């Protein structure tokens, strides 16, 4: 492997940092694919990274860092297999092909093209239905997002040892049950797996999106991380409308971030947001993606949600929102699955297009839904509609209920401010 001539132009630390996030997951996925064993792959990847840390600052960064790392990691893995009977036996059980144990010298130098992107297998493997949903998210952030355990722990509001224990347990389960970290060969199973992958990514986004500025910065970075995972997924599955729809949804939602809080960190409702602060680049990209995804026959709930976000993004002012279109899209969304929160949002949209009385009537019909009774946005929506109709007492009661349920300090301040306006 020829080292890069100008070492100063590509400082090793920077390249390593970039490689760590951007390509560490590709390295790991390639090793898992090759050896079928997550522990062995992790150790070998770690060894290759350490070797790079030692040699790159002196010898310069190789022109194809990923290929270099893969070669070193494969050698490290094979070395371990030769010296470790247990690992060798495990690999034999896993039917690792004969060629996998051929000496790496026979392979010749690798190029980036020789390292196929196996991350789809990791994504689908981490989201196997036999893995608990909370563990799927942790595994994805750790092994596809290439975050450190400490970073994943911070992002998910867990203590690092707790997160490490969770990952260890999940890895033991993968090994003990022999859960394949592969793309399912059965097309029907592949179809069933994709929504689990997309849902996990959307949950990662929500974790970051709902974080307030008081939270650790890594939590807010989660939305960026989710967008990165959604990009990878779409790139790996270009034929899937839903993978594209999810990316569009995340981009369009994230575009509003600069306007979602005021200077004091208090949430700003959609109707009061300064739309000039929305990120025009993300909106343009999101709109193009959703328009194209919505025209495909396999468009599903993520694409419909993206289409709803697009209606908001396309309205220059809140008053310009095409609420009839929003209601129609919520109706379409409900055909993909009954969901009280979707019903609630539909009721709010009805309130905008057919008047607050009709919207409030629909909302009040939902009051018995257990999921909504504890959901503070539901009570905020009730309060806002009652205010519009001059039903102050009912509004105050709903604001109070929302205040009891709201978790964040910033949200509580928002609610208190609204209560103060009503003379409470």
């Amino acid at each position, binding site marked *: 492997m020829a080292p890069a001539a100008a070492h100063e132009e590509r400082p090793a630390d920077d390249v390593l940092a970039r490689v760590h996030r951007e390509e560490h997951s590709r390295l790991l996925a390639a090793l898992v694919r090759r050896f079928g064993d997550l522990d062995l792959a992790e150790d070998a990847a770690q060894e290759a990274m350490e070797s790079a840390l030692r040699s790159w600052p002196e010898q310069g960064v190789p022109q194809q860092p990923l290929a270099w790392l893969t070669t070193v990691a494969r050698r490290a893995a094979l070395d371990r297999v030769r010296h470790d009977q247990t690992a060798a036996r495990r690999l034999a059980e896993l039917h690792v092909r004969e060629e996998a144990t051929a000496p790496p010298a026979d392979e010749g130098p690798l190029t980036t093209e020789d390292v196929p992107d196996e991350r789809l297998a990791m994504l689908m493997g981490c989201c196997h239905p*036999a893995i608990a949903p909370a563990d799927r998210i942790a595994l994805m952030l750790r092994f596809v997002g290439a975050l450190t355990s400490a970073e994943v722990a911070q992002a998910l509001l867990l203590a690092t040892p707790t997160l490490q224990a969770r990952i260890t347990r999940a890895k033991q389960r993968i090994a003990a049950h022999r859960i*394949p970290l592969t793309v399912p060969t059965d097309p029907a199973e592949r179809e069933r797996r994709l929504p689990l992958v997309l849902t996990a990514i959307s949950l990662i986004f929500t974790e970051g999106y709902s974080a307030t500025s008081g939270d650790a910065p890594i939590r807010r970075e989660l939305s960026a991380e989710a967008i990165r995972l959604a990009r990878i997924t779409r790139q790996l599955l270009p034929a899937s409308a839903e993978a594209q729809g999810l990316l569009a949804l995340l981009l369009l939602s994230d575009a509003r971030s600069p306007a979602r809080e005021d200077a004091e960190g208090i949430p700003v409702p959609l109707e009061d947001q300064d739309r000039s602060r929305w990120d025009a680049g993300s909106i343009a990209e999101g709109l193009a993606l959703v328009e194209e995804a919505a025209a495909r026959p396999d468009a599903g709930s993520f694409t419909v949600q993206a289409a709803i976000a697009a209606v908001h993004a396309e309205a220059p002012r809140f008053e310009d929102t095409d609420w009839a279109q929003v209601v129609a899209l919520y109706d379409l969304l409900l055909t993909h699955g009954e969901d009280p929160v979707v019903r609630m949002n539909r009721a709010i949209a009805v309130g905008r297009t057919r008047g607050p009385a009709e919207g409030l009537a629909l909302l009040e019909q939902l009051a018995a839904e257990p999921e909504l009774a504890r959901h503070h946005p539901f009570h905020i929506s009730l309060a806002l509609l009652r205010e519009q109709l001059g039903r102050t007492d009912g509004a105050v009661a709903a604001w109070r209920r929302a205040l009891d349920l709201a978790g964040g300090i910033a949200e509580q301040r928002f609610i208190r401010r609204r209560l103060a306006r009503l003379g409470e």
Partner: protein
Amino acid sequence: MKYVLLLMGNLADDRCGETDEGPGPEEFIAFDEALKEAGVLAGGFALTDPEEGTSLSKATSEAEPVITAGPYAESREFVGGTIVIEVDSLDDALAWAAKCPGAIGGRVEIRPLAEY
């Protein structure tokens, strides 16, 4: 790798056991044949009804055994039988479990056989 399919039934569900609604013995026999043909069958047994059982438990190693008629009273779920299969991965085991008549109305629990 060997997996045990635990065929779980529920006392509260009429579709388990010898009723018209649940899968009949001929369906289980056909499933058994399919496993044999595929060369993955590695053992298993069917059980009589849970009320035919007798339970024994000891609070400590020294305690007198307590013997009761029937299954553990508070559990509505019972093991109706087991099938041991030898396949490559959990996905293969799940694919067989999905074809198992015991899954209909009941539950098939897939557990890797512990190797000592």
